[in-house]
């Protein structure tokens, strides 16, 4: 069974491809949704197409499935349209699936289920990455605020941090917000 993954995020496509390979599918291709991707897809003649629901190129793909002579075969979206819970799970995970020939749904359903799990895993990975990135930049902001306090008020590092923390508690704000305000004020006053 030939599966094409249309995706412009290298990481998500890899996460999905690995899962499919582990499940024993080996005819897998990744196509970015740009330029002449429709013609490429036609030449590949896939049995199943998996695509990110957030991709703006979905309308282009659907148009192709409607008019393409090469792919003028029965089309099913989300594999079995009567299975509402599966469809809901697919939409929530952000995956859409197209069967581009008359494949039996029993053969395709596991592919879609796996894709949903993998898309969810990717979303989790993505949000963890974002959190890590935010934490990193939060730390930088706090460090900069500490060094302003240390140089302008002659405080030690632990005292500078303690001052930031107690101000934050008094104002009911996050330390990073107080630190940011301090940096902004210091920039305005030409401090650092």
């Amino acid at each position, binding site marked *: 069974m030939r599966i094409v993954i249309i995706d412009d995020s290298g990481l998500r496509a890899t996460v999905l491809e690995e899962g499919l390979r582990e499940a024993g599918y080996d005819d897998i291709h990744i196509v970015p949704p740009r330029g002449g991707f429709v013609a490429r897809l036609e030449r590949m003649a896939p049995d199943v197409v998996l695509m990110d629901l957030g991709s703006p*190129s*979905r309308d282009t793909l659907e148009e192709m499935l409607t008019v393409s002579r090469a792919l003028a075969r029965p089309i099913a979206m989300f594999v079995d349209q009567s299975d*509402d819970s599966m469809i809901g799970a697919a939409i929530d995970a952000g995956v859409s699936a197209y069967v581009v020939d008359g494949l039996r749904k029993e053969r395709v359903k596991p592919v879609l289920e796996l894709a949903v799990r993998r898309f969810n895993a990717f979303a989790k990975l993505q949000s963890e990455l974002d959190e890590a990135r935010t934490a990193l930049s939060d730390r930088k902001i706090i460090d900069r605020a500490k060094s302003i306090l240390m140089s302008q008020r002659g405080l030690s590092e632990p005292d500078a941090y303690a001052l930031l923390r107690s101000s934050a508690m008094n104002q009911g704000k996050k330390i990073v917000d107080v630190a940011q305000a301090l940096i902004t004020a210091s920039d305005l006053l030409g401090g650092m």
Partner: protein
Amino acid sequence: MTTDLRIAFLPLTDAAVLAVAREKGFAEEEGLHLDLVRTTSWATLRDRLVFGQVQAAHMLAPLAVAVTLGLSQQAAPLSAPYKLNVNGNMLVMASAFAQALDPDVAARLDDPLGTAHDFAAAIGLWKRKPVIGVVHRFSSHSVMLRYWLASAGVDPDRDVVLRVLPPSLTTEAMRAGEIDGFIAGEPWGSAAVDAGLAEAVAIGERIWRRGVEKILAFRTPWLEENPEVVDGLLRALVRAAAWCDEPANHETLAHLLSQPHYVDQPSELILRALSGGIAPRIDMAPLSMPDFLLFSREATPFPWRSQALWIYSQLVRWKMVEHSADNAAKAAAVFRPDIFRRALADSDVPLPGASMKLEGAVASPLAVGSKRGELTLGPDRFFDGRVFDPERIEDFLASF
């Protein structure tokens, strides 16, 4: 108590009424909290609505008719009790192609019939079929472009290539030379003009002076089961629409829509459609087009059944659906003037007495029968002078 309502939209200027209903408190005053879900393709917006992930959607009017008729993936009965806008589209082409048209851009835009004929001649001069981007098979843009091309004997399925691509990718596709032009809602035409990649060839409002554009779509069973929520939302939208049409608010509105979670384009570009100051070419001063985009005046939100039938007639004309009495009835039933009247019965919004009218028959502002207050309809002529009588669809189809 506040009811949460999820509504999907695409990043376009004509999503303005939904954004304003949320941001300016009109929805809140009706006890509704709007969760606006930004979506980048019509296919995904349709799926979110059809499969119940959202309760309503900012939708292309022809797409709502197509989904109801079972022409677009999963069939589902949809209902549109409210029109979010009329007009707002622009056809732009690469300058190299537009050179074969009338060099006086203002004259070109004022005479869509002449420009269509010039365009037809230009196709012969071009080294290959022009590739024109449309936002969806079932879009008012596609329907209007086909109508315009055919007026000059151009067969849209044979003489040009119509390529479907989302509005947000149009500029990139022009730059890459994948398309020679496109028709889309604002601010995407203006964005391509500003990038020096294209110039205006036709304006939607000059093709059909009051062309149906986006509607607010619901799944019919949900609409029937939640009358109070629907009525409250419609009342909020009517007030938001009046706010959007007010010139004093246009700058604020452009700024609001420019934010990343709405249209995510410069407010200066968005302002053009709102204020009707359209720059047709990068080196030209804006032309004044006061009817470029309407949200409220002339009962814009009222969903005339005759307009759903006009859309249907065009789907039949281009062989996207077989004509039958049953299909026509299903298409007409997508627009729900009954719900609009029910929701606004106690307001001071003028309500038309009829649900159908001749489309394309009004040449100059016309006062019409209304349940309350004064209602004046603006000119709604088609550029070719045809009139659509919803009672005589067969005759209309035979006239092409």
